[in-house]
């Protein structure tokens, strides 16, 4: 089944009027995701950019019920909503916990792990801007190697934690990575997740122009470069079967790294080190760009 843009609903269930920065990757991810999830959806979001930009006080940018939860508990709240719906016999609603990289991989990890282990019928979406951007861009476990953050001016010295592998270790039925630069791929994955009645995990790359040090109009272009150079692999694991959903064209990783302010300290050696790692991962010839 291949999706076409013309088949997607024109209405926006999230987006118009949101208070995101210019070129906000998270807002783009939210709009694309709601094209897949549809109006029968309930969203819980912990403290994050997404919670801030999509509503405060008596105003919201969502057309569906949206709960702003405490930082640690978005998947637990979603699991509770699912239990309440089950108790009322309501079966046609998607329950989504939508958290940033901190609300997923660090601060919110215990409740996420708990929901995955219980196999609660929710979709957890991690929109990953690779820093704690709502609090001015501190280092988190999803920050990539060598990226400069507001509290590590020399760049992070350890690698990004592989959240998909961690979630798959829970034995969940569906996990996928996605990028805002490939919206139809993202929408197809969320549709798959929504069709299942078990725990699903979708991890979306959503560049943040402030944290990444890029012009506002490059959010999507940079996400595409991340995919094309091979550093952000688009794949899904469905009932244990792993499938790469997009074959990258393998542009040099330097084309992705060099335009970003957060990688301005990278030396040629370190770029080559990352290129070698990509080549090893995809079993490509050593030294080939």
């Amino acid at each position, binding site marked *: 089944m291949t999706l076409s843009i013309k088949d*997607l609903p024109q209405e926006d269930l999230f987006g118009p009027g949101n208070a995101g920065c210019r070129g906000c990757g998270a807002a783009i991810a939210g709009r694309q995701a709601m094209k897949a999830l549809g109006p029968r959806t309930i969203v819980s979001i912990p403290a994050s950019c997404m919670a801030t930009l999509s509503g405060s006080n008596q105003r919201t940018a969502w057309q569906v019920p949206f709960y702003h939860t405490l930082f640690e508990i978005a998947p637990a709240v979603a699991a509770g909503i699912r239990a*309440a719906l089950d108790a009322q016999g309501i079966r046609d609603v998607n329950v989504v916990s939508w958290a940033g990289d901190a609300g997923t991989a660090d601060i919110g990890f215990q409740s996420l792990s708990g929901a995955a282990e219980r196999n609660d019928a929710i979709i957890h979406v991690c929109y990953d801007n690779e820093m704690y951007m709502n609090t001015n861009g501190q280092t988190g476990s999803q920050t990539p190697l060598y990226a400069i953050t507001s509290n590590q001016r020399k760049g992070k010295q350890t690698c990004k934690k592989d959240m998909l592998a961690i979630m798959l270790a829970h034995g969940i039925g569906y996990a996928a990575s996605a990028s805002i630069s490939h919206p139809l791929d993202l929408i197809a994955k969320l549709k798959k997740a929504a069709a299942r009645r078990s725990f699903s995990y979708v991890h979306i790359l959503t560049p943040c122009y402030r944290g990444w040090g890029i012009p506002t109009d490059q959010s999507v272009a940079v996400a595409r470069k991340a995919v094309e150079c091979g550093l952000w692999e688009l794949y899904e694991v469905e009932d244990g079967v792993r499938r790469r959903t997009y074959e990258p064209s393998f542009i040099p990783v330097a084309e992705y790294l060099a335009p970003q302010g957060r990688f301005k300290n990278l030396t040629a050696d370190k770029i080559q080190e990352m290129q070698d790692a990509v080549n090893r991962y995809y079993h490509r010839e050593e030294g080939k760009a």
Partner: protein
Amino acid sequence: MIKDLPVVPSAKAGSMAAAPAGAAWREQHPVIGTACNQCLECTLFCPEGALVQTGGNMTVMLSLCNGCGICAVECRLQAIAMVREYTGVSGVFPLREEKV
């Protein structure tokens, strides 16, 4: 029993669209040229949902657009141009001297 619970204050669905924050600090806005073939790709890349197809034409809802420029970069046909403008307390008007 659930229906007996008190109704807590909650926001009206989509109420932020009535007074969008982003349009107030816009510095440029997209203008869609004749090369547009209605592929609708830009509609999926706009963070605000400002690009809509109405009556077989693409239109920019300037009340929502915050001028990020993603649509102009992503358009495969280069059919979208960003036009600089002044936005502020005095209203919105294009900068005349600016070459696009």
